[in-house]
């Protein structure tokens, strides 16, 4: 079986700075891949390289065997890969359901069908009661859920979540964790999750990739990662390793 996503020796340079250098890993269908690393490790840059916001300076990104390099984000989305944003980007003046409809319109031209799809996704994130609210007025927890619903509405096969739990309180985080596990259980969507909350990432991930200063430091199951001395050193310094 070809992996759903293959990252081969991807590097991204900004001038002389290597935000990613020679990162390789691959993901199988249906899994949840955790992507962790200290601040500035290059996690979001890697997301941007994968989804078409930056062309990688070197290396290849293969989605279901197809090379993506240089494809614009909208084409990548139509192929079935969608990302959410660490800094949420609601369409503030539109209503919640309209936000999700914009995602759904990726697969249909009919507003009626799009509205039905959008309401379905709002039910998935338990926000259907807020459908007619203006997105700009939502609190952060609901904005994050809206972000996920809108991404899901594009009917992806690969979902990339960039710190969906950042800035949330424990109850809200738990809700998102449950949501991610539910999506996995439904079985059609593979997920890659960037997260700083270690407890959460250990709980949901099947495998974890650790980035540090743009390079891949380690890859393995959550249990392997927590006992890896290199990872501990990257996070906590030499003293603890």
């Amino acid at each position, binding site marked *: 079986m070809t992996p759903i996503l293959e990252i081969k020796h991807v590097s991204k340079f900004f001038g002389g700075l290597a935000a990613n250098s020679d990162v390789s890993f691959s993901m199988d269908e249906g899994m949840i891949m955790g992507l962790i690393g200290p601040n500035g490790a290059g996690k979001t840059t890697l997301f941007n390289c994968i989804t078409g*916001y930056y062309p990688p300076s070197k290396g290849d990104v293969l989605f279901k065997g197809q090379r993506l390099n240089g494809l614009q984000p*909208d084409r990548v989305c139509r192929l079935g890969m969608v990302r959410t*944003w660490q800094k949420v980007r609601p369409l503030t003046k539109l209503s919640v359901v309209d936000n999700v409809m914009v995602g759904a*319109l990726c697969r249909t*031209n009919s507003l009626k069908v799009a509205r039905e799809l959008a309401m379905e996704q709002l039910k998935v994130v338990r926000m259907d009661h807020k459908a007619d609210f203006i997105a700009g007025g939502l609190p952060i927890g609901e904005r994050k859920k809206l972000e996920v619903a809108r991404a899901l509405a*594009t009917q992806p096969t690969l979902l990339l979540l960039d710190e969906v739990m950042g800035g949330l309180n424990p109850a809200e985080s738990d809700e998102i964790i449950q949501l991610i596990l539910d999506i996995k259980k439904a079985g059609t969507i593979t997920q890659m999750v960037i997260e700083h909350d270690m407890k959460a990432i250990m709980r949901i991930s099947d495998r974890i990739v650790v980035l540090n200063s743009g390079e891949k430091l380690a890859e393995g199951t959550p249990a392997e990662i927590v006992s890896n001395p290199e990872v501990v050193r990257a996070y906590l310094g030499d003293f603890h390793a």
Partner: protein
Amino acid sequence: MNIIRTSAGASPVSITLSLALLAGLYLFPRFVQSPYALHIMILIFLSVIMGEAWNVIGGYTGQYSVGHAAYFGAGAYTTMILLQYKQINPWYGALVGIAVALVVSLIIGSICFRLRGPYFVLASIAVAEIMRLCAMNLKDLTNGAEGILITEIPPLKFGETVITDFLTKVPFYYIGLTIAIVTILVTWWMQNSKLGYYFQAIREDQDAAHSLGISLSLFKSTALAISAVFTSLAGSFYAIYIGFIDPPTVLALDISVQIVLICIIGGIGTIWGPVVGSLVLVPLSEALRSNLIAQGIFKMGLASEESGVGIFLKEHLSHAHALIYGILVVVVILFMPDGVLGWAKKLAAKKGKG
């Protein structure tokens, strides 16, 4: 509360009202023969067409083009040049003008849409200025600064039947009204279609829109093309109606700014905003220009015509029309950031609550 109604279901009341208004507008020339009144109405229609056209790219898609004179001028010049050199009926010339404006919009779009925010605004101004300078200097084609004057318009024919020969302002009234209604209908259709959703998504957040499968270049160009078509039509209509064009009247920055103001004053990104903006701006600028305000002051007895103040007002108020106009625009922008329409809606909502 932050709840809004999204489905734009038209109520029976609003449909009846619109139909009555429409009938009134179509019957208006039967009861009002004053050429001046008709002239004002025609200017209002023209302004509505330009405002609705800009609204598509500026209001819905959020790309603040301040270079719409380019399309206005493209329509006006194409029509007039074809009439002058090839004797092509201007109503067909207007169609050619649309084609020219479409091409211009694609070229401008492919250059300017690489830029965002203020840089896009500056680039759009620059391109329109280039067009103005070309019109000034390509004297063989455009007559340069002398402009193009037509004294008679060929009658509009359908086969052999003459529909109208344009001896009065009435045919212009109906044509202007019809085009204005068409632009409003197109805007309405757009708002309730996939295009409207995609345009607004681009306005709210380009990167988010891009990640949701929206091709920025395709949909920005589409919005600009729709906008250019109607702006060009307005330009052609203006040229035929006035009968004279030169670079300062159809290609200058003034025109571009005027077009943007119609929307800003009325309310950006709404169907009725440009209509409200036109209803405010056109009569206002006419009143200021023609010294109606000074006469009003005399009539109300606020100042006598012979007094020092009166003489001063009579002599200088009409010269100061641009100043007063500017001050009013600033006041609206400061105190009604959502335009007159948004302000009225807020007021109505407050009253509804209290």
